[in-house]
């Protein structure tokens, strides 16, 4: 509990700085308006004028929250202005891609620990690929898949899968290798076969590593889905809201989409965390 107060303080400071920055960054527009009308604005008039603009340079926090609430609860879910609709478009691509990427990653990790040649040849590339800005190929994947007739959810999901794939491979290989020699020797004295060792020792002991990578992977998946929505020309999804907002100068809309994306990311990571807690407790590995 001794963390609540400091965290609240930090958040309070951030909000205060944000309000101050709102006044400072939006004042030019107010001064311009006043100069055009030939009136002087005092500081007391300036503050409310900067905090409630239609298209501010920096929207105030309450404007963002209002827009977020309005476009989340105030619209019909099927409406094109509803953030629930756009959020779901992004979320479904994220989850599909995450499932594909995680499944493929676990399979490759199993292959890697059972095949020495595969380990030596694939592993260095899997590690090196983490230093590469993979996200750069997102536009190409979208357009290429589009030109061979694959549209909608799948291209975005493939980018998500690609981004979550490598963290899962690296973490899972580490996890499946985590049993020490003593434990492996014990199973050998039990005359356990390779698949029994895998199911009863390697797989359970890889779980903490798997969940750590899953948290990284699901955050990366969401980024992949959002960036994957950019080149399709702002049709649907949180990324499309960001892009159309930047086309039309709707700053409040951009910030609301950004906050929605942040909330989705936090919810996804928290969900994986809750599942992690449950699973590890059931398996007697909770710390």
């Amino acid at each position: 509990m001794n963390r609540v107060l400091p965290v609240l303080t930090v958040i309070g400071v951030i909000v205060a700085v944000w309000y101050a920055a709102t006044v400072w960054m939006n004042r030019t527009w107010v001064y311009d308006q006043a100069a055009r009308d030939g009136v002087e604005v005092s500081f007391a008039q300036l503050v409310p004028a900067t905090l409630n603009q239609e298209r501010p340079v920096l929207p105030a926090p309450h404007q963002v929250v209002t827009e977020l609430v309005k476009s989340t609860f105030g619209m019909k879910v099927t409406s094109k202005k509803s953030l629930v609709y756009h959020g779901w478009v992004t979320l479904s691509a994220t989850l599909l891609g995450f499932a594909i990427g995680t499944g493929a990653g676990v399979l490759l990790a199993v292959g890697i620990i059972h095949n020495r040649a595969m380990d030596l040849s694939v592993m260095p590339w899997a590690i090196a690929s983490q230093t590469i800005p993979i996200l750069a190929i997102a536009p190409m994947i979208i357009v290429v898949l589009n030109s061979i007739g694959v549209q909608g959810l799948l291209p975005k999901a493939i980018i998500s899968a690609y981004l979550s794939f490598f963290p899962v491979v690296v973490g899972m290989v580490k996890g499946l290798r985590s049993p020490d020699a003593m434990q492996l020797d014990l199973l050998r004295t039990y005359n356990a076969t390779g698949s029994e060792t895998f199911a009863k020792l390697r797989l359970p002991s890889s779980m903490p590593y798997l969940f750590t990578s899953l948290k990284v992977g699901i955050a990366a998946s969401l980024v992949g889905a959002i960036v994957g929505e950019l080149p399709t020309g702002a049709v649907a999804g949180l990324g499309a809201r960001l892009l159309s907002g930047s086309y039309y100068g709707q700053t409040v809309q951009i910030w609301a989409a950004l906050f929605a994306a942040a909330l989705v990311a936090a919810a996804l990571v928290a969900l994986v965390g809750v599942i992690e807690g449950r699973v590890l407790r059931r398996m007697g590995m909770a710390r």
Partner: protein
Amino acid sequence: MIWVILSLAFWAGAWAANVRLSHSAMVQSRAGRLAVPALFGVTILVVWEGMVRGLGVPGVILPPPSAIAARFGAELPTLWADFRQTFVKGALSGYAIGCGAAFLTAIAIDRSPFLQRGLLPVGNFVAALPIVGIAPILVMWFGFDWQSKAAVVVVMVFFPVLVNTVAGLAASERMQRDLMATWGASYWQSLLKLRLPAAMPFVFNGLKIATTLALIGAIVAEFFGSPIVGMGFRITAEVGRLGLDMVWAEIAVAALAGSAFYGLVALIERRVTFWHPSQRV
């Protein structure tokens, strides 16, 4: 058809060679350890080339590696200009500012456990968010040129470096700090001579994570608006013209730049934290 068969034969041969290599004594040596992944990489290129040629895949879907290499060679000046715009101006300057600011912030809040307890959860939370989304806002504020890209990079690298540095400053052991106290070391002496060196493995962990983020931030920010030069601009423009060999050439540049940047930071890390167990051979 002959291309397909030849490439599949090469694949089988290379795989057999890799299996033999990885079970032989060669693999203990450094050369053997490099040869196996190198052979695997070459195999992928050969199979890619063979399949694209053999199955007649059109160049607008997947160009063969030879076409990409040819385009790479022909467009070197363009690629170099894009590289300078995105990597040197956008990513590197943002990386330096962001990492520097995070490092100084970490030292500034080092004396206040209250701020640390508050900032660490917030920092961890922000590090998991899709910060790339801030790109359209920063492009509006700082214009289309490299300044907005550097700003995106600053925001992206700040929190990972901050969280790691704060964790690192807490990494020295109680005994070591007590020893400094018995020598009458001041706060700054103890910071400079014990706690900062002890924090370096953590700091470099953050710096390494930040290298990839910096490139991603600089490239993705260009998707939201850029001058007519830059890696992200070139990728979107050439995708629109279906010049996929140029896109792949840019991706090759991004991959090379990304791994070279990471390698450079890892090299500096090895020099600075030579004492750490993970660096001893």
